[in-house]
């Protein structure tokens, strides 16, 4: 159970809905993962006009919380306009805010992100900002009114997994009470388990499932990994040490040598 902007979600996995072989496989994958929320891109499906209603209604028929995103937006204005459109189409004030700074790496433009977050928070949106692991940017986003942060762990779609664990630890340490969702860069279930073991509240992913040979099987695997990582975190992990420690006492030898 996780609470985001006052809404309780039963699972700590959020799934994206792009790039699946078909909507039917998408639906099966979402079910297999036990995800509690799905993201959907409004802009990608607009094509300069309306017409994506059929796909959106397929997403809505999954009966999960919908987190519309502003994927593909490169400016504050674009992102704000897309967020407002998403609010009308999906009837939710949730918005995953992406302001892309580089077309090639899809790195967030953190300056535009903070500005757009302020505008949308003031307008009553529940903003889920896709950001880097930079602590100062995170503080600015919280000042702007965000109550959830979504740091990347590697570039979108890269499947690299956590490339800077120190930064992720430090983010968790600095913001102990803010729901932190790792968004982007996860490639395999073990990556998801790892960030959950670090104490992150949830993970959001898309490509690793959608582009798997069997998206449904991979979705199920991620669901289990997220649960495993969370339970491990709550159970208190043993810190690593650099000498062997037998799990049964060695008999007949002095304890301290």
């Amino acid at each position, binding site marked *: 159970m996780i609470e985001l902007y006052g809404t309780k979600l039963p699972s700590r996995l959020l799934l994206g809905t792009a790039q699946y*072989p*078909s*909507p*039917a*496989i998408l*639906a*099966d994958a979402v079910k297999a993962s036990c995800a509690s929320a799905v993201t959907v891109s409004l802009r*990608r*499906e*607009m*094509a*300069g*006009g*309306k*017409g*994506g*209603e*059929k*796909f959106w209604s*397929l997403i809505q028929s999954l009966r999960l919380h919908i987190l519309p995103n502003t994927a593909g937006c490169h400016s504050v204005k674009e992102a704000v306009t897309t967020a407002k459109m998403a609010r009308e189409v999906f009837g939710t004030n949730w918005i995953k805010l992406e302001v892309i700074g580089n077309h090639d790496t899809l790195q967030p433009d953190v300056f535009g992100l903070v500005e757009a977050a302020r505008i949308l928070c003031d307008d009553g949106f529940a903003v889920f900002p896709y950001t880097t692991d930079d602590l100062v940017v995170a503080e600015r986003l919280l000042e702007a009114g965000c109550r959830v942060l979504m740091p990347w762990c590697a570039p979108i*779609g890269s499947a690299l997994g956590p490339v800077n664990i120190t930064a992720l630890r430090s983010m968790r340490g600095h913001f102990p009470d803010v729901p932190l969702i790792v968004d982007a860069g996860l490639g395999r279930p073990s990556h998801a388990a790892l960030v959950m073991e670090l104490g992150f509240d949830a993970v959001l992913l898309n490509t690793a499932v959608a*582009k798997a*040979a*069997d998206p*449904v*099987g991979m979705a199920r695997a991620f669901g289990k990994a997220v649960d495993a990582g969370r339970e491990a975190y709550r159970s208190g992990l043993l810190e690593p040490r650099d000498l062997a420690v037998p799990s049964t006492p060695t008999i007949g030898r002095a304890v301290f040598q």
Partner: protein
Amino acid sequence: MRLLVKGAGVAGLTAAFELASRGAAVTIAETRHGLGGNASWMAGGMLAPWCERESAEQPVLDLGRDAADWWDAVLPGHVTRAGTLVLAMPRDAGELDRFASRTSGHRRVDEDEIALLEPDLAGRFRRGLFFPSEAHLDPRRAMAALHEKLAGSGVEFRFGVNALHMTGFDREIDCTGMASSDERLRGVRGEMLILRTPDISLSRPVRLLHPRLPLYLTPRADHHFMAGATMVESLSTEPVTVRAIMELLNAAYSVHPAFGEAAIVETGVGIRPAFSDNLPRVEAHGRTVAINGLYRHGFLLAPAMARRAADLVFDSDKPVELADETDGQRRSA
């Protein structure tokens, strides 16, 4: 038996051929005033079931592997059997491995073999995949030729008519794609370009893999190339977007800089009719048999669908559905 085929896209034309060749008196009714303007007209014309298997399910390969033979037999001279060449930029080399692991019927080719297959691409790519059994055709020429052949063999074409008021037929074959009233269909918009340059020639479709923007280039007659195609979950028939053109041209330019000097002869938008599993269906509803949901596989799957529809009309009243087979395969995958 008197049959009315509604729709003169690739589904309607192939169905008319199968039905007429089994002895039916066929009339084709098309609301448009000619052959163009539908999704088939915008198609790439690749008969590439092994490549498609990368993202499509097994029935697409099973139903599509004989498509080149069908087209070759019906329209001799229209099919080019030269395979498909799949390439990636050096930084996306991992995409080749991923594509190879999801598909069959290919072999790895190195720089020298790529140069032998496509001399104009010599030195530009280090690694690739070659799918030797695949083929391609020019959809517009194929549709025009099939139209001519059907008309010559007694099939009646009625263009610019509303088939609602046409009566006196034993059965109807609904091949109207997105214009069908089937609520289960959704539209998947595709954007394409036709380029012309005498500075480069290709013998076969070339696919350029990219994690976000895959592209194919298919050679056509008189130095023309078709570059496609985007996939957007939308029914919008608005003109091609700047982004789509930029991405398609960028990819074409990456295949060969000569495309930088090519003329953009045409930009086009088509809406692919698709069911939620992206697989086609042939179904009987009373006196009507419907072929629909060919998605991005019109020329590849229309022959098999046409045969199934003809079986349904002539041999049996049992519906032929792919959905059950597919669900089973998906679950066991």
